[in-house]
């Protein structure tokens, strides 16, 4: 049989470069030239950012369409690594844009221009804006990125492992479980790391075990019983948290309540660094297991006959994910529904291959959380609200839609 290349045979159709890419590049260059003709480097940047809303919406839709064209429905390049890299780079770009927005915008009035000047060093250092940007906003944005990445990835892994599209650390009660652990840690006067973190991990492992025992029928983890168990675990943990709060009288109460709000504002570079060191290895480990997750989608028995060591893989996935989730919970409290929204959106756009979805969830989840946090900081007229409010406002309706769809 003559060796046709895959493209010739039509297993993989190659996609032409969409026409809007050169068009948009041209438009941007033109804009840049105009801006340069007018003013200073700062204004160039400002000008590039100030693309009007219709244009950016158009761009966003085109980007999504471009991604969708690369999804396995219409397939694609033969090299999976190339595909992973392309998608990662695109999402990384989105993440950087979101981070930049997050740094430049905030509740400080009229600070946008100042922020740009401060960011690009065209202003004397040591100003108030400098402090706000580097001491407050920057660590906060990094924290949001890490938290969003870890929680989306957590959702992705649970959905694959439990073969349930509604699984998510928060909905399953794992977040609240590690929350209980963390509160115990705070009450015992531990420091945030490693004391509270370790307690949070212990709490999440206990709830996970409880959940698996409660929801396991004979051999199979059923969809409804899993969700119901999660609801019960959540209710129980909620009551326990209330109990702990009501018997606490001193200054630790303040700590707990602040933390409970699912809030990203209390952080500094030290904490962010610790969190990064603990969860970035988890990302790598999970990517390494991503093909096993693909095989797991066909059921445990099939995966076994295709060479997956189910016991080892399941154990690693459960432990690593709980570890990752409890690390984020111990830093910023339970933030809900992130693990539901991002995996579903990304799966819709890129298809179900986990080798693509794991890096996409890390980058896309980070982007999503940074944007949610930005909304939380800028929406209220005065002060700010916890980012958990925004993620719940977006995520809970989606949960209901998904629930209705899987019910059919």
């Amino acid at each position, binding site marked *: *049989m003559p*060796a046709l*290349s*895959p493209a010739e*045979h*039509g*297993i*993989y159709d190659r996609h032409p470069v969409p026409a809007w890419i050169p068009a948009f590049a041209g438009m941007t260059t033109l804009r840049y030239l105009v801006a340069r003709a007018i003013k200073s480097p700062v204004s160039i940047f400002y000008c590039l950012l100030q693309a009007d809303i219709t244009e950016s919406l158009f761009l966003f839709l085109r980007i999504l369409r471009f991604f969708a064209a690369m999804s*396995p*429905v*219409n*397939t694609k390049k*033969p090299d*999976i*690594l190339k595909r992973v890299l392309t998608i990662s780079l695109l999402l990384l770009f989105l993440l950087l844009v979101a981070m930049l927005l997050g740094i430049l915008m905030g509740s400080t009035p009229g600070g946008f221009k100042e922020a740009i000047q401060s960011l690009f060093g065209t202003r004397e250092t040591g100003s108030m804006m400098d402090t706000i940007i580097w001491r407050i906003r920057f660590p906060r944005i990094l924290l949001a990125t890490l938290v969003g990445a870890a929680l989306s990835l957590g959702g992705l892994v649970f959905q694959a492992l439990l*073969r349930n*599209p509604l699984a998510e650390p928060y909905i399953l009660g794992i977040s609240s479980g590690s929350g209980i652990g963390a509160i115990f840690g705070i009450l015992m006067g531990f420091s945030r790391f490693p004391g509270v973190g370790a307690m949070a991990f212990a709490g999440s492992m206990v709830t996970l075990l409880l959940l698996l025992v409660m929801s396991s029928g004979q051999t199979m983890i059923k969809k409804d019983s899993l969700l119901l168990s999660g609801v019960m675990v959540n209710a129980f943990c909620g009551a326990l948290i209330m109990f702990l709060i009501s018997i606490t009288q001193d200054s630790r109460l303040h700590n707990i309540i602040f933390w409970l709000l699912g809030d990203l504002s209390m952080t500094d570079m030290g904490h962010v660094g610790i969190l990064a060191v603990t969860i970035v290895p988890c990302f790598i480990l999970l*990517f*390494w*297991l*991503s*093909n*096993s997750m*693909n*095989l797991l*989608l*066909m*059921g445990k*028995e*099939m995966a*076994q*006959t*295709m*060479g*997956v*060591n189910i016991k080892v893989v399941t154990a690693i996935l459960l432990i690593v994910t709980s570890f990752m989730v409890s690390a984020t919970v111990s830093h910023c409290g339970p933030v809900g529904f992130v693990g539901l929204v991002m995996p579903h959106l990304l799966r819709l756009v890129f*298809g*179900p*291959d986990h*080798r693509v979805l794991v890096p996409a969830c890390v980058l896309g989840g980070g982007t999503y959380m940074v944007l949610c946090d930005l909304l939380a900081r800028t929406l209220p007229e005065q002060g700010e609200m916890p980012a958990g409010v925004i993620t719940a406002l977006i995520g809970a309706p989606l949960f209901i839609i998904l629930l209705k769809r899987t019910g059919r």
Partner: protein
Amino acid sequence: MNTVIDTKKLSHSYGDVLVLKDLSLSIQKGDFFIIIGPNGSGKTTLMKVISGIEKSGKGRLEILGRPMRKYTRKTLARAISFVPQMVPVDFPFTVTELVLMGRSPHLGTLGLEQEKDIQIARQAMAFTGVEGLAHRKIDQLSGGERQRVFIARAICQEPQIMLLDEPTASLDLAHQVRVMDLMERLKQERGITIVMVSHDVNLAAMYGDRLLLLKEGQIVSMGLPEEVLTHNTLEEAYGCNLLVDESPLGKFQRVTLVPGKCIDSGMKKTDLK
């Protein structure tokens, strides 16, 4: 070495319930081996034990001359592929992606497929006639199409032994024959040993080189189709009146059901045991 699957006094139980009792059988390389037997007789369980899904407690089991415990999941997956009775498909993989997953045991942990693997997947899809569905999503296929996709996936795994659990159960007449012919071709062209569970004794008579009739986890009869498919053996195993004669095609047995003549008391007797 021509024995690819060899068992001695193999038993298996779920909890306290003994489902396979002291099975001793050997399957030769290049055989089309078909397992028949009433519901609940342990056919699926036997397949699961051979494919390593269930670990058997007692007895000896050797695959390709090596004892089962010497295999890792991956090395076993290179020797045996399995098409189960039902595969859940909740996630929208395309046919190509799914067939390509069959390459996993030959690849690293990340399963990064090369040009060669894509070739193999393409050939497997052509073999089962699903190349036209390459871009379709697996959850949008009919039962018969899906069955052929999963067979393509199993072929893509390039095993020496292929296990199939009732692959013809949800297929129309033409597709039943097509799948059986496919297996025959796999056996002849690639020397793959086929082990299949089937409820269709007539297909078994036509295609099987050797048959195994199981009942309550024990061997009722094993051997050539004309040795196994006799009137007395079948009636005893199924508890049901049957006619066995020669098919109009000649050289095969033909089994015909007789309506309204099930021996109910026979069924009850075995249930009580």
